[in-house]
């Protein structure tokens, strides 16, 4: 790339043509977060107390367990998209930006997978 011709210097520097999709998914996951995190907030307030027995008993039920798994998927997806925008705004050097986005993807998938596994383990009673 960039052998001195005008077109060679600008190729690959324009839009990635993926902005609308990114923008829409950010909104879809935002709506998911709105309902799911508000569900978590209300649930925390309605729980009798926040002791291990109360919380584990509550989160082992099918509906809270599924809602928590959906919350993990929605929030980690939303966070991954949002942090990508921050990285693109503040990390200008190409190799560093690439490395940051790779690390972000690994962290987002690993975090969501860990959270989902914890809920499944609790709900299926492996530690009880």
């Amino acid at each position, binding site marked *: *790339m*960039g052998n001195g011709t005008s077109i060679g*210097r*600008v190729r690959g*520097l324009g839009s990635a043509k993926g902005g609308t999709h990114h923008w829409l998914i950010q*909104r879809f996951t*935002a709506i998911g977060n*709105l309902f799911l*995190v*508000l569900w978590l*907030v209300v649930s*925390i*307030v309605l729980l009798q107390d*926040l002791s*291990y027995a109360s*919380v*584990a008993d509550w*989160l082992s039920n099918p509906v809270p367990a599924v809602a*928590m798994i959906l919350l*993990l998927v929605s*929030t*980690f997806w939303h*966070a991954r998209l*949002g*942090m990508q925008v*921050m990285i693109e705004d503040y990390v*200008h*050097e*190409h190799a560093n930006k690439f490395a940051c986005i790779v690390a972000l993807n690994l962290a987002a998938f690993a*975090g969501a997978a*860990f*959270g989902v*596994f*914890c*809920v499944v*383990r*609790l709900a299926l009673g*492996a*530690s009880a």
Partner: protein
Amino acid sequence: MATAGTKNRPLSPHLQIWRWGPHMFVSILHRVTGNGLAVAGLGVLLWWLGALASGPDAYATFAWAMTTPIGYIVLVGISWAFFTHMMSGLRHFVLDVGAGFELNTNKVWSILSPVLGVLLTAAFWALLLLR
């Protein structure tokens, strides 16, 4: 390669050029609270779920850490960040459909959304601690 041919391009004015307004504050706050939630909020959520999955001993460690003064600061910070990000996010939904750009309306909601975020945080902790 990214810098090829970009040396003398005109740059858009940065923050200090513009006269400050609440819309700038709420925009920066949205980014700060969002990224804060992504790191601290999701981190604490995973610790909570990991402790629940590991059993009562691990949960006791988590509960101890979260009831220290620093733990309370972190939890109040996360809840404030969530309610603030939620309010400015709802503001974004309104702006997304093309509404709320009139100068006065925009200013009112730019001021109201962080204020409502603080009020919701206070209400949440009041309900939690007074139940």
